[in-house]
């Protein structure tokens, strides 16, 4: 007995050392590219092309940030992005929570059919053209609401919430019903307060998606600069840093926009600018989503 204990503790020590090494390697691999990006973003553009910049800029410059922040559309984009993130996230969480609540009621007559109805949506889609035509007919194209309404309910988020709600004791609902509470009251007064962790998780899911999306802005609001988004503006910035004239055939004359910035440094600066808000936000939500994110299916 004694011998065994000593042996296991030696093994345990080896394990601890190896595990720590693994974690250190993990952190280095995760953080290095990000820190390297920050370093490059503060470096002179032409100089950066030569490579060899690691964790500290070689030829310090803030021109990259000036270039990024000087864009008029960027401010509009930032506003729209904040608006869509807030409105989109709130509406999406409410809608998904209601749906998850319904399908997680054990007595609900259509619960399995309704679940299946949503699970299917994860795997089939009609393709871009019908979707586009639909949005156009609904008047969603060329409007802010195209960022909010179409993605409001999503099967994955709903499933995450359903799993969590299924894990809550049935007795809560039963006793409330005995007290004469209706389904809505149970939802708002009893279930929702207990679901804070999973709500926070979904908030983060949706918020990150909203914050990072640019494809919808390009597709549906290309000509509406008032509804442009931050990431789309950054995309534009990246493709126009080294803007060229160039009709493959004809001789068009255009001046150029080059200064001492290059795509490498501007992309880095842009990366830092878009990363910053969400990086500042997520540690606050962290304690919720660690406990809130569980997923489960049904088991007979």
């Amino acid at each position, binding site marked *: 007995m004694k011998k065994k204990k000593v042996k296991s503790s030696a093994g345990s020590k080896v394990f601890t050392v190896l595990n720590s090494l693994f974690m250190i390697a993990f952190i280095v691999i995760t953080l290095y590219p990000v820190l390297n990006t920050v370093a490059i973003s503060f470096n002179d*553009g*032409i100089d950066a*092309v030569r490579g060899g910049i690691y964790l500290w800029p070689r030829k310090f410059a803030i021109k990259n940030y000036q*270039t990024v922040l*000087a*864009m008029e*559309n960027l401010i*509009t984009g*930032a*506003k*729209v992005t*904040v*608006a869509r*993130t*807030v*409105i989109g996230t709130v509406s999406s969480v409410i809608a998904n929570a209601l749906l998850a609540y319904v399908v997680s009621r054990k007595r609900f007559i259509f619960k399995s059919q309704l679940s299946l109805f949503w699970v299917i949506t994860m795997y089939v889609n009609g393709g*871009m053209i019908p979707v*586009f*035509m639909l949005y*156009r007919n609904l008047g969603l*194209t*060329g409007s802010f609401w195209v960022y909010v309404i179409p993605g409001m309910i999503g099967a994955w988020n709903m499933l995450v919430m359903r799993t969590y709600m299924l894990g809550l004791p049935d007795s809560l609902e039963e006793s409330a019903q005995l007290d004469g509470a209706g389904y809505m009251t149970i939802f708002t007064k009893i279930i929702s307060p207990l679901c804070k962790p999973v709500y926070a998780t979904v908030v983060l899911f949706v918020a990150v998606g909203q914050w990072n999306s*640019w*494809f919808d802005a*390009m*597709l549906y609001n*290309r*000509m509406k*600069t*008032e509804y442009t988004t931050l990431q*789309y503006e950054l*995309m*534009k910035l*990246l*493709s*126009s840093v*080294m*803007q*060229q*004239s*160039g*009709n*493959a*055939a*004809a*001789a*068009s*004359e*255009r*001046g*150029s*926009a*080059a*200064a*001492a910035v*290059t*795509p*490498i440094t501007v992309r880095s600066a842009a990366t830092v600018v878009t990363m910053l808000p969400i990086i500042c936000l997520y540690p*606050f939500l962290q*304690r919720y989503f660690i406990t809130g994110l569980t997923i489960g299916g049904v088991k007979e």
Partner: protein
Amino acid sequence: MKKKAATLFLASVMVLSALAGCGKEVTDSNAGGDAGANNSVADAGEITDFTMFITMPGSEINSDNEIAQLIGEKWGVRIKETWLTGQTASEATGTLIAGGEYPDFIDSDDMSLLVDAGALIPLDDYIDQYPEFKEKWFTEEEWEKFRQPDGHIYWINPFGNTKGESTVTTHNDEAFWIQARVLEWAGYPQIETMDEYFKVIEDYIAANPTMEDGTPNIAYTILCEDWRYFCLENAGQFLGGYPNDGSVLVDKDTLTIEDYNTSEDTIQYFRKLNEEYNKGFVDPESFTQTYDEYIAKLSTGRVLGMVDQWWNFAYTVNDVFKQQGLDAMGCNYVPLGLTTEAGMENRWHTYDDTVNQASGVAITVDCKDPDKAFKFIVDCAMDQELHDLRFWGVKDVDYSVDENGLYYRTDEQRMNWSDTSYQASHRCQYSYMPQWGGTSDDGINANKPEEQPSEFQLDMAQPLKDCFAAYGADNYVDMIGSVVETNGPWFPMYSYSNNFTTETPGGVAWAKMGEIKHEYLPKVVMAADFDAAWAEYMEAYNACKPEDFLAEMQAILDTFK
């Protein structure tokens, strides 16, 4: 409790800032509207705001751009240009068609697709309303080239027209480019073939492995991203002495189409590239670099040579050279008119105005006011004052006029003109609207500053001047020394193939050939065994049925018989 407060605080900050954002947006747009309304009373009726999408990367100008505002007040039109972002040109066009919602103006490389989709309005009647424009802009035959199978004209190419005397100084075409410093170091030798070209570069890099600051020199790089892979694929046609028909060769005597992809000149060209690659003189990143990376690389001044079109690199790269002082070190590129054998005539330079009927500016069915939109296209072409405003800027602000009426700029004005933020807030070229080369209506000035001989001379750095002088050239065009001749009426053939769709077997073949060339040409260059790689490439190439494509091109050429 504390954490709760923090979360609450955070949430409320977000909501508040969102509300603030929304509120401000509303007032902003109101303010804009009012301003627009007020100004519109001033002149030319109301300012109409049009949108325009161009399937090329470009920089948006600010919504309060000064010259755009001036143009709006005087000509009643303000255009919001949107450029290509995050997609290829044809994807962007496809997306627009899929969505079925169009901007007021559009300039795309896939015009026939837009016509198929019923997206464009026929311009024939509008063109007839402006006889002076009709006569001046294109000849009758040129207009006919724009006529689509359904008998209508849908777009007008805005480029390649010269007014008055041609003052072209740049070789705005493809070439083997080489840095002036390399030629200077070698004592300005005569270079006529690829062998001589690479010999000079190899010798130079052996003697000068790095630049002054220690950055290693790169002998030769190739861009082959997306449609810009012409830097790799079509040099064979020029080496054989043919002009830039782009997708095929035309035998002028028999009027037959030939395929340059399989021609001896092309094989020899790739064999040479392969040899240089295996010797280590071709940049190993050639086939994986993006356009941005390529331009950034050229901008460092370390690349000694490449094949490219002038407009694809020079505007950006030359500006950077100027700002970084690299032009004084002889980093500027000069064009060489190489051919397979020494002494052959070369046709790298296109002397005539090239009318590319494959693309141009069009008005869509969603346009708010087609009459006004078309009138603006005409104004752009016909009104010298508007033209000067677009390309020279505001008088006494962006340029000055001397006692002889000659426009000139100070260094500061030139600097401003090339400054990014100044371009966004002040400059407005509407660069995909009709424009002229050559000389202005006043007979003195060039239509564009860069074609003004006095400006051109001022702009040149000493090594470039020395180089031109050594070869007895005044400018880039003299330098490349192409034979002066007029191209056939079919020229350029790429303007037809650019509009092929997968509706026809030839179009399918054309699309597949592009895919195969993108994949195999780099492999051929990198191969250890060139002949085996070439044979493999040819097998895949022939499987695309290039004969279908060539037959359809021949049918087009036959219409000129």
